[in-house]
């Protein structure tokens, strides 16, 4: 189908974008990479009165490593992050996840900030940010603020972003020598949204793992930590961690799989990811 009519404005600056978001004449939406938004417009699942294009604002894209944190500008394209030596070295979980996102042409346009702000419950990057304990920079009418990933994802497509807020960057701890990451997902075809996926991060602690963070996606309205399984994995038992998932997760069935199937697949993924976490880093 074709989108309903809307007006288009290219924001000249962040302040301009926030000013445009205040327009009284109806719903306005921010346009970043557009790879989810324009699809929903074409399907008329969404019919905003105004699209505010962020693509002309300088300084919103780019990757920087400072103070042991990796900062990724909101308008950084997936493809740019995929090619980045800084991401490969300092954000290996993001590097593992990126090839699973859409397809080459989608990654050329799609942005990391857009993916986090859209917060599709089956998307890879929100779960990665949660697994890494990252944070999100937001600018709104009252100024700047930073929200932790644990507090950002509120509900189905609902985040800590207010109606006049713009997500400007994400920040995550740079991987240290003893950091281990793991990522796996089940999807019917390469590039599809996952039926179930798991992003994980841990620190090597002696012969075992410490500070394990398991973030599942595709099993609820938001990316979910499996905290009991995290504890069991820290104690060293993969079997017990898999058993604990039954109390951590309660996935609903959807068009792709029943809840019971998803829970089973979550266990399969945990075994795979636990193996990745325990691999000796070369």
């Amino acid at each position: 189908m074709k989108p309903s009519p809307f007006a288009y404005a290219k924001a000249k600056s962040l302040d301009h974008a926030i000013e445009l978001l205040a327009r009284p004449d109806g719903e306005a939406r921010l346009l970043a990479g557009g790879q989810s938004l324009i699809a929903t417009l074409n399907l008329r699942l969404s019919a905003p009165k105004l699209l505010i294009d962020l693509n002309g604002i300088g300084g919103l894209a780019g990757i920087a490593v400072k103070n042991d944190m990796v900062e990724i500008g909101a308008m950084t394209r997936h493809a740019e992050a995929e090619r980045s030596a800084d991401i490969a070295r300092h954000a290996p979980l993001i590097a593992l996840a990126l090839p699973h996102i859409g397809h080459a042409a989608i990654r050329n346009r799609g942005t990391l900030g857009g993916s986090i702000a859209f917060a599709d419950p089956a998307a890879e990057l929100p779960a990665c940010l949660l697994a890494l304990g990252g944070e999100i920079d937001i600018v709104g009418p009252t100024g700047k603020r930073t929200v932790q990933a644990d507090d950002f994802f509120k509900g189905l497509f609902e985040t800590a972003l207010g109606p006049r807020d713009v997500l400007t960057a994400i920040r995550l701890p740079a991987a240290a020598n003893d950091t281990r990451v793991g990522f796996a997902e089940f999807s019917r075809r390469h590039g599809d949204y996952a039926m179930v996926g798991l992003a994980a991060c841990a620190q090597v602690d002696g012969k075992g793992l410490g500070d394990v963070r398991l973030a599942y996606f595709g099993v609820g309205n938001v990316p979910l930590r499996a905290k009991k399984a995290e504890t069991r994995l820290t104690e060293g038992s993969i079997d017990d961690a898999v058993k604990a998932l039954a109390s951590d997760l309660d996935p609903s069935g959807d068009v792709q799989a029943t809840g019971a199937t998803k829970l089973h697949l979550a266990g399969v993924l945990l075994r795979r990811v636990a193996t990745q976490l325990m691999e000796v880093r070369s």
Partner: protein
Amino acid sequence: MSEHRCDITLTVNGETVAETVDARKTLVDFLRDDLILTGSHVGCEHGVCGACTVRVDGDVVRGCLMLAAQCNGARVETIEGVSDGGEIADLQTAFEQRNALQCGFCTPGMLLTAQELLASGQVPSREKIREQISGNYCRCTGYHAIVDAIESVAQARAGHKP
């Protein structure tokens, strides 16, 4: 300023084009309906099938997931321009010789997507080729012949004997 109609100036296949478009018009509809460049096809209109693939500023993109209004100042290349320029003549020949197309609906998108992978000059694995074209649906060939064609061109360009 925000408008339902937008003035845009861009280059399409090397020629400067200035038009006024509906804000809601997608790039592929603009190319097909306003410029009569019908080599880019409209399939699913939500980014799944890859039939509308074009290049914007050198990168392949979904023509249905960009607005024409976003292309002010951009350099757009379609299958018409890329094939007329001879850049993918070997790929087109390989597709024909290996029966990598039947109805041809997916072919423009397949060619542009494959060319982006081959532009690196490497010889990609068959798995990598499959991953690259995973966002381009073909309902005729079963993909094997397309992978064969792309692989053979990669090898030929790298100087391997067929």
